[in-house]
């Protein structure tokens, strides 16, 4: 019969070590009693005693009065009992994932169709949309984005032209910088750069705005005031986007080509030669498809942004998560859509 003394100074710093020491002492003996004369029943001591009793149930026991303090009754466990979860089979998991994705895709499609439907219906029926809301949105989505769009497109246009010029110069082809800059900006980079900037800037803010309105019951309130939240929230943004995106894209094109112009002056190409060549390579077809692309990117960004916003459930943290997802998904969809356009148009 061995007596194990429980020290009086068990705390958060030494609790684990003392437990190990006591456990070892107990496991080396067949029969054990505790010396609890100096024990102080703080949280750690109680936890250590519980652990010892659980791990050596046949060797140790506590006097009734201490036992009562040490063990706690887990209140109404049935209520919190976790559902027994068997890890689902691989195919079931894949199936569930695909099914969830399918549900989301349907909902996204509905939003897209509703958005376009209500936006065109708005042209004949001005109900449920605030006056000046389109202008206000165009101001924030478009006008406010001009500096950053210009700057980024200029820098990217400049960098790409510079890299290209270095290679072209090796073959004596530096005179083609104008053509390359013009084509790459109008066909690809102009619409793409603009869409990525707008997705990061405006797509996120749309999700945050609508998500917060959902959390604050404002969307519910609109509905029960008999106002279609969809029309009220999305139509002004739709028209603002549709009008503003081609303009921003045009600005990006100009900025990018200006970057090319700077590079070609470095390579001693006269400005008017650059401009002549630029005008030659500027095709109506490219400008037209660039505009089509930029508008479809705009619709995707708006649809993703509002889809994520309307789907917010919970509180402020849910809005944050939705905002992040919105940017990631809309940039992905923009790039994917751009690839599809390229395949259709240029192969």
């Amino acid at each position: 019969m061995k007596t194990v003394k429980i020290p009086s100074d068990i705390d958060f710093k030494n609790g684990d070590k003392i437990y190990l020491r006591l456990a070892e002492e107990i496991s080396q003996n067949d029969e054990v009693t505790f010396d609890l004369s100096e024990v102080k029943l703080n949280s750690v001591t109680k936890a250590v005693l519980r652990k010892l009793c659980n791990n050596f149930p046949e060797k140790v026991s506590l006097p009734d009065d201490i036992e009562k303090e040490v063990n706690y009754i887990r209140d109404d466990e049935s209520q919190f009992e976790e559902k027994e979860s068997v890890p689902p089979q691989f195919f079931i998991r894949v199936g569930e994932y695909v099914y969830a994705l399918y549900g989301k895709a349907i909902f996204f499609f509905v939003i897209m169709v509703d958005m376009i439907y209500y936006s065109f219906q708005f042209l004949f029926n001005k109900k449920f949309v605030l006056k000046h809301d389109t202008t206000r949105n165009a101001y924030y989505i478009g006008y406010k984005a001009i500096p950053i769009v210009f700057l980024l497109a200029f820098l990217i246009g400049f960098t790409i032209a510079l890299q290209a010029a270095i290679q072209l110069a090796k073959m004596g082809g530096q005179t083609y910088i104008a053509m390359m800059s013009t084509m790459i900006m109008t066909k690809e980079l102009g619409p793409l750069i603009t869409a990525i900037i707008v997705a990061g800037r405006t797509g996120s803010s749309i999700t945050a705005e609508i998500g917060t309105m959902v959390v604050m019951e404002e969307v519910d309130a609109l509905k029960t005031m008999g106002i279609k939240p969809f029309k009220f929230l999305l139509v002004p943004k739709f028209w603002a986007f549709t009008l503003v995106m081609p303009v921003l894209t045009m600005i990006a094109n100009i900025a990018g080509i200006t970057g090319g112009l700077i590079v070609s002056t470095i390579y001693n190409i006269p400005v008017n030669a650059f401009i002549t060549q630029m005008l030659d390579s500027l095709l109506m077809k490219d400008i037209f498809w660039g505009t089509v692309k930029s508008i479809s990117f705009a619709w995707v960004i708006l649809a993703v942004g509002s889809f994520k916003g309307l789907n917010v459930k919970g509180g402020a943290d849910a809005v944050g998560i939705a905002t992040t997802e919105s940017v990631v998904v809309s940039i992905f969809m923009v790039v994917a859509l751009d690839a599809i356009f390229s395949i259709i148009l240029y192969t």
Partner: protein
Amino acid sequence: MLRVENLTAGYGEEIVLKDVSFSIENGERFVVLGESGCGKSTLMKAIVGLVPPFSGDIFFKESKIVHPLPEESDFYQKIGILYQSSALITSLTLEENVMLPITMHYPEFSLKTAKDIAGEKLAMVNLYKAKNKLPQELSGGMKKRGALARALVLDPDIIFFDEPQAGLDPVTARELDLLFIKLNEQFKTTYFIVTHELLSIRRSAQKVLMLADNKVLFSGTYEDALKSDIYKVKRFFNVDKYSKDV
């Protein structure tokens, strides 16, 4: 005025309310009470269609309401709702918020008259001076009053209140209650009030409906509720006397 029969509602597959029936008379202040999480807000949302009911019938002024209703439905112009979070549109001033139902439903209506009506409603809730403020510049009690002005603007037949006193100090809560009662007596608008504030129930309740365990536990006048022999009802009105000590 409003009659609900065997309403069952919930979220997804979870049933929150089962077979709830009651009816509200014209001009009455009808209070729904019960412990937190018993489904009071769900009942209100089921009636107005924010949580479409699973089954049961809703009759509003003797005509049947089948959810989901389109937003254009007349029903939504005959009800006003005061949400727990006030739900004023953050990008609009108080006056624009109050005018919103008019400008949205009657785009041809003169803006000047709409402003005048909004001003009248704001004056009723003593907020005329704050009409050009944005919601975030208002205190909790002011937001509630602003939302009430908005709920009143189309002269609804019934107003739903979801815990109007939540988050307010007792003095402000009392002023708000007295304002509600004054307007109710003045316009004979029917009130559907969700609350668990005893003081507020005592001040405003005429009829009460108590929910517990997904069901209606008590339904009747406030006086009868006070005399009820049902344990949970007695406990609700006299918590200290009937509750087990922890």
